């Protein structure tokens, strides 16, 4: 089976007046199969949002991407000139409160999306939109259709956002921190909704988050990103139960749920390096409790640690 989405050695560099200023994404390879939920996990600045933007073709000004992005085996242009965005690929953003235009009704905003990607009459488009409002479990679809964003709660808006993302029956849904701005109970409902919709429509999901609890709940596979690289990837269960990379272990150890009262929090020391130009050796070694001299010489690639489970660390598995 060919992958739905295949990201092959993606790099994103930033240029200013012809000078390279930073390279926050340094060769990411990743794939999503139809119906699969893949989580991208990492701290702020690890390159996870840029990866999503590259898939959408929405990189900011000055960004220079390289590598390949394939959708259903077809190479996508990296400059955003493709029309897959909003159609074959959809996205749901972190903050539903600001993601909708405040001066138009939800119905109008959705009609713009339908009009852009589908040939459909006004009445048909309205019926289409109301249908998806029902699919995402919004009560009184007609009222929602006529509502302005400020008249609805955050949870309802996020459901409406998901409805908007589904309007053109996408093959791939990107979720960018979809529950971070929501209450815990609402967040749980939204995650369950996404899983049930995935079962119904069969789209693949790329879930971007820094919340390992969310990953545990919904992901089939995860990729842990650090400093613009995948440092560990594999089935979600395997990675979460037996993390091989010290960074992943640090992330899991830093989870308050695992924290034993009275013990100091096992947080990771230091911070992500700000600029990744001219980095040699392992990018994590400055913060790594297991670092040895050789870590400064070798920049390790992904290597199998178990079936389907890979990590980029020469000390993988070491205690």
């Amino acid at each position, binding site marked *: 089976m060919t992958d739905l989405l295949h990201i092959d050695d993606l790099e994103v560099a930033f240029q200013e007046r012809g000078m390279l200023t930073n390279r926050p994404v340094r060769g990411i390879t990743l794939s999503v199969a139809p119906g699969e939920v893949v989580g991208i996990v990492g701290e702020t600045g690890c390159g996870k949002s840029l990866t999503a933007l590259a898939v959408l073709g929405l990189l900011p000004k000055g960004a220079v991407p390289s590598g390949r992005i394939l959708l259903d085996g077809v190479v996508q242009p990296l400059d955003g000139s493709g029309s897959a*965005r909003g159609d074959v690929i*959809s996205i749901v*953003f972190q*903050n539903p409160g600001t*993601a909708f*235009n*405040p001066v138009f009704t939800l119905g109008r905003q959705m009609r*713009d*999306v339908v009009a852009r990607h589908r040939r459909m009459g006004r009445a048909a488009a309205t019926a289409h939109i109301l249908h998806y409002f029902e699919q995402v479990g919004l009560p009184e679809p007609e009222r929602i259709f006529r509502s*302005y964003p400020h008249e609805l709660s955050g949870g309802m808006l996020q459901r409406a956002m998901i409805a908007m993302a589904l309007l053109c029956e996408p093959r791939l849904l990107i979720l960018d921190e979809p529950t971070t701005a929501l209450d815990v109970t609402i967040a749980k409902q939204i995650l369950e909704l996404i899983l049930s919709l995935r079962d119904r429509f069969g789209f693949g999901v790329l879930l971007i988050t820094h919340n390992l609890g969310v990953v545990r709940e919904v992901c089939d596979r995860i990729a842990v990103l650090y400093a613009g690289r995948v440092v560990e990837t594999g089935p979600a269960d395997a990675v979460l139960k037996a993390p091989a990379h010290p960074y992943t272990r640090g992330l899991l150890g830093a989870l308050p749920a695992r924290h034993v009262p009275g013990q100091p929090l096992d947080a990771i020391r230091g911070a992500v390096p700000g600029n990744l130009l001219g980095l040699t050796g392992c990018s994590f070694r400055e913060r790594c409790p297991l670092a040895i001299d050789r870590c400064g010489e070798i920049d390790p690639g992904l290597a199998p640690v178990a079936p389907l489970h890979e990590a980029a660390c020469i000390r993988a598995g070491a205690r």
Partner: protein
Amino acid sequence: MLRFLASRLGTAVLVLFVLTLVVFVMSRVIPGDPAVVYAGPKAPPEELARIREKLGFDQPLIVQYVNYLGGLFTGDWGNSLATKRPVLDELAIRLPATLELLFAAMLLAVVFGVVLGVVAAKRPGRAIDGVIRFLAIGGVSMPAFWLGLLLQVLFVGRLGWLPATGQFSTEVEYVSPVAHVTGFPLLDSLLTGNWIAYSDGLAHLVLPAVTLAAYPLGLIARMTRASMLEVLGQDYVFTASAFGLRDGLIRWKLALKNALPPTMTIVGLAAAYTLTGTFFVEVVFNWPGIGQFAVGAMLAVDYPAIMAITLLGAAGYLIANLVVDLIQARLDPRVRLS
């Protein structure tokens, strides 16, 4: 909605009341004898005394003020000292011409100001942005009376394309006079299908309207640019592009509707500048409106006329701001009028 209007009108009435007081006191306390203005500098003392009595200048100030206020409500705003006719009549016959000029100028200013602002915001810091910025600042730096004269030299004197002054050519009155429908001459000529008068009136309107529009156009263009730039950085604009919507639709409809409310605030202010702008533009183009009458009244120290113009100007400003608030409420569903 009604409550908003009522409270706004209440404030307006209060402000106007204070204005009457201020202007009245200013006009009576400061030296200068209105009777002399009325009768002429060579009038004998008995004549002046008679006029003082007739116009009530011999009574105590407070009585004069109460009489004046009472007159305001009953439609007696006093007689112009210069023309000896009721001030209200003088203003009423001139108001339509001024309003047509104001409307044309504001229409030009809003349409072109908004378009230039959106275009400038498309490429901030680039050449086109710099050119538009220079034009906008040039517009607000331009003395209207001078711009009017320059346009006359070019389009009337050199090119001969447009008429220099007035609202209609004199011949129109004989060939194809404008019938009275609404009282607005250009509108009436259009409504009655009087094409001779309409095209003539339109040709006369172009130069004064453009002259009057320069200042508000510059203000509106700058404000639209600034608020567009702010809106374009918002999440929902990014959402729109993430859903593949076209750049033109995003800028000219989705973002612009968000950028317009702050722009409308400046439109109210621009309209106020335009109100005073008519004074100068009407003088330059001999436009038969209130502005020209006002300048004459001020030079002649025609108290009743000056006071009426002041009140009318302030009322016009208040109305302009009220209209702006109503438009803002229509544009932005989050604004509640209360």
